[in-house]
Every structure is written in structure tokens, then in C-alpha cells.
């Protein structure tokens, strides 16, 4: 906690992305991304399908390492450390930068075990019951599950499962939470709960969220990045590019680029 505060004083941005491009074999998924992500704010990535925003968010915790042939060029620093430096351990990166996925993916075990797994692999086994309760409380799930901690997590509803995934992510005390379309599989009520939760969590964590939902981006994010795809001259390749990156309030009222305006007003995409 203390280190977090000192860093916050020294440095406003948590990630600095410079000339980043990601390719799978010959296919360039996204290129020339330059952006600084502000600490303890919600940054939303929006754009049409295939514009590389999910690919991009996965470079922030090196989940792209797991995809065969994925290659990252350019630099992405996290609190000043180059994430793709040879000396950086991706396992430690993922421990500091948590991730919530598109489809709720609880482990097929009890609710409690879903939380304790992350604690155990990170040697955070002291006061384990308190940690479980704290994480579930922070994820606004405690009151619903406190009597069934030994129930199988797959018996929960989709929205509850997603909040459980958020709970297990924050249980290991990361600095940043990456969310890859966390509400796309949920109904509006469950979506609302997650959005409210994000507003609570952002006091303590930096949040990056990929979303297809324009309203969600305008409602919940502080900053917004709009990506689009550019088709190559021969029309065969589509590569994602960052079009505009600004404060959400600015982008949704007076966007700089014509393309952004068209997209957020629903005229394309």
C-alpha cells in the first residue's frame, strides 16, 4: 500500500505505450499505438470487431505470450519498467496486473477455492479466510455467497460468476485490472452491477476495459481510446490502429476525428 501511494505521487501514468505493434506470424493485428494510461482511472478501449483492442489489452499483462507466434514490437512500460524486457518474469507481471475475461471462467471448484487458488500460488496464505471475505466483499458478492462458500462456483449465475472472477483477481492485490469485455455475456442488470463495482474498485486500482458497448464506455470510463481497422492497399490485410485517445467526456461530445464521431454516433461499425 505504501509503495503504491509513493508511486502515485511520483508518476501519474501507470502504463506508457510507445510505437507498439502486435503481430501473429505475418499478420499484423495492431500497429503504431502510442498512449499513456493514467493511474487509478478507468480507461476504455472501443472500436469495431477485429481492430485489435483485445490483442492490445493482452499485451499489458503478457497474456499474448501464450499465443503461438504472437510477437510484440515497440515498448510498453509499467511504472517505468519495460514489460517485455528479457529480465522481466511474465508470472510476476500477471500477479501485479490482473485480468478478467470476456466469458466468466471460474474454476470448476468451490467458491472459496476459486479465491484461495490465487492466494496459494502467490504465497498469500496468512489470514486466508479474512482475505477471501475481503475480496468477495470488494467484489460485492459476499452477502450473496457468504453461506455457500463451499458451493460449486459453476452453480452461480453468470453475473455472480463474473463478480467471483473479479474477486479472485483482486484477492491477490494487483495494481491494475484488465477487463476484456467483462459484460458481453451478461444481462443488463448484471452489467449494471459490474459497472457500479468498477466505480468502487477504481479508487484502489487502475482499470483498463475493452468494450463493445458505447454506452458502457461513456457511462463508466474516464479516458477512452478509439481503435479502427485499416485495410491494406491490396485489400487483403486488416490492421488495427489507434484513431483517438482522449478524456471520455471530450471524446463523446467533441471528438477530434471525423471517424470517431461517426462511430460513437452509430453511423459506422
Amino acid at each position: 500500500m505504501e509503495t503504491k501511494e509513493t508511486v502515485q505521487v511520483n508518476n501519474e501514468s501507470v502504463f506508457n505505450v510507445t510505437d507498439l505493434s502486435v503481430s501473429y506470424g505475418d499478420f499484423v493485428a495492431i500497429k503504431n499505438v502510442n498512449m499513456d494510461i493514467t493511474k487509478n482511472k478507468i480507461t476504455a478501449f472501443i472500436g469495431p470487431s477485429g481492430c485489435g483492442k483485445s490483442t492490445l489489452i493482452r499485451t499489458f499483462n503478457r497474456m499474448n505470450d501464450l499465443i503461438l507466434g504472437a510477437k510484440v514490437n515497440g515498448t510498453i512500460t509499467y511504472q517505468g519498467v519495460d514489460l517485455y524486457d528479457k529480465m522481466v518474469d511474465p508470472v510476476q507481471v500477471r500477479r501485479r496486473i490482473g485480468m478478467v475475461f470476456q466469458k466468466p471462467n471460474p474454476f470448476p471448484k468451490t467458491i472459496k477455492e476459486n479465491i484461495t487458488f490465487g492466494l496459494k500460488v502467490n504465497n498469500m496464505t496468512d489470514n486466508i479466510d479474512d482475505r477471501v471475505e475481503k475480496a468477495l466483499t470488494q467484489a460485492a458478492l459476499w452477502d450473496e455467497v457468504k453461506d455457500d462458500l463451499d458451493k460449486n462456483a459453476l452453480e452461480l449465475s453468470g453475473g455472480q460468476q463474473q463478480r467471483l472472477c473479479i474477486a479472485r483477481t483482486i484477492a491477490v492485490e494487483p495494481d491494475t485490472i484488465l477487463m476484456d469485455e467483462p459484460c458481453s455475456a451478461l444481462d443488463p442488470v448484471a452489467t449494471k452491477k459490474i459497472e457500479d463495482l468498477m466505480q468502487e474498485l477504481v479508487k484502489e486500482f487502475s482499470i483498463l476495459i475493452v468494450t463493445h458497448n458505447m454506452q458502457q464506455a461513456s457511462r463508466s470510463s474516464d479516458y477512452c481510446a478509439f481503435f479502427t481497422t485499416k485495410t491494406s492497399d491490396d485489400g487483403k490485410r486488416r490492421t488495427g490502429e489507434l484513431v483517438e485517445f482522449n478524456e471520455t467526456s471530450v471524446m463523446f461530445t467533441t471528438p477530434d476525428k471525423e471517424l470517431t464521431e461517426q462511430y460513437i454516433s452509430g453511423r459506422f461499425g
Partner: protein
Amino acid sequence: MLLESTEKNMSNETLITGKKAENAIKESLFLFTLYICVTIAILTLMTLIYDVLSTGTTRLTSDYEVGLITKIQIDNPVDFLTTLDSRYPDRAGIGPAFAGTVWLMIIVVSVTFPFGTGAAIYLQEFAPKNRLTRFIELNLTNLAGVPSVIYGLLGLAVFVRLAGFGRSVLSGGLTLTLLILPVVIVASREALKAVPDTIRQGALALGATKFQAVFRQVVPSAIPGMVTGMVLGLSRAIGETAPLIFMGALTYVNYFPDTPLSGFTAIPIQVYNWIGYPQAEWKETASAGIILLLGLLLIMNSLAIFIRNRYEKDL
């Protein structure tokens, strides 16, 4: 019809075509063919079971008298399981063969489980996706289809002669292990493959190492499938005769194997042996042996189904 017409025909004639009746006949014909296929399979099994039960049960019940020899010693199934073979059909028990089969099962399980699941976990979760791995995968699939006699030859050459285990139950068990290992590896890999990738990603995203993700999340989720594959492999192993005869299992054994290096026989070999005798009474004894073997297989397959259902419910 729609393709030919230049403009969309939305009138009711396109709805009322009489095609439904036509389709219904086609479908019921197809279903009928499928029923016949299933019936043939079930009838074969039923005939086999009826045949062995009608001849074999006399041998497994009390007050058994046949021919000139009056039944003296053996009068119930437990005796049949524990008695030694004999040259009189009514006194012949399946004891040594049953014990031999149990020995084989113990050896096969204790060698196949660690090696089979270990190989499967490595190939599915850790092996680099290169030519060597693909070559090994191709070989495994091919090995699963090699005739079992070939494994008997291999067992004779490697375990009996080269390793010097002799014609022992250990050699037999290891030979059967080789036989089912490819099947078990393939089944275990399928079980691992069925674990959704989101589980792996979820574990890794929490800061787990690859090793922790595999052994604490993926493998536990795949265990029911792996055990099912193991049990099915094992039930194939206990029914095998050819490789054991080839590697030199004995046919007449009047003692119980007491060490892994004892000579042995197994239930299918014993049955094969009995059925070869000309006297009619041996048919009954052999049938009793078949009933025992079928019973064992039934129990093991039920166990596999039980494990699968039990854990599927948990998921």
C-alpha cells in the same frame, strides 16, 4: 425452387408443398436402418450371454451332477474362483487364472497410470509444437492400432528374454501395459483437451506458473476422463489372450502365482484351453469362466461410467 424464381415468392404455395410427408418417409427409413444396426449389436451380445449363462450356470450352482462323475468338491461360485485347475471338468476351478488376472491388473495399473498420464500431460500441455512432437503423436495413434500379437512378440523379446524376467506374470503385465499404453495416452490427452482454455488462462492471469496452472487446475479437471480411459484400457487388457500366449503364459497352472516372477495363466487363456478339450463337460466349465470374465468387464465398464457421471455432476 426459390433460387430459380426471379422474384421472391412469398405466397402460401411455397409453404404447402407436401414435402413434409416425403421427408417423414425418408427420415423414418433412415431411423429404421439405424435401429437395425443397433439391434444387431445388442442381439450378438444377448446371444453370447444367453449361451454362456445357459451352459455355464450349472457349474456355478450347487447340487451339480453330470455324466458318470458325481460332483463332490465344487458346489458354489466361491469354490470355482478359489480351486485349482483339474483334469476332471467338474473339479476344475479357475483359481490360478483368476489370481493371474488380478496380478496382471495390478501390474498394468501401477505401470500404465503414471506413464500414461505423464506422457499425456507432457504431450498436451508442455511439449513444443514441432515436428518431433507431431511424429510422436502420429506414432501413438498408429501404435493404438497395432495387432495385439505383435505386442506378444515384443514382450517375448524384451521382457522375457532381454530383461530376463522369464515367462512370468511381470513380463505378461508389462506386455499388456505396452498394449494399452497408447490407448490410455490418447484417452488422457482427449480428457486434457476437453478442459477449456479459459481455465488455463484464468489460472495464469492470477500469477500462477504454467506448472501450477496445469497441475492444480487442468489435471484435476481432467482426472475423471483420465481414469475412465484407464479403466477402459484395463478392461481391454484383461480380455487379451494372444499376446500372453505369444510371450509364453502357461496353459495348465496348478498353483497360485505368489511373486511377480511366478509363472502364470489368465482367465481368457484358461477358457481357451478348456474349450479345446473334446468332452462336453468342459464346455460348461469354460462357460463358467466366460461368465466370470464378462462379469469383470461389466463391473469395470460400470465403474468407468460411474466415475464419469459422478464427476460430470460436480462440474
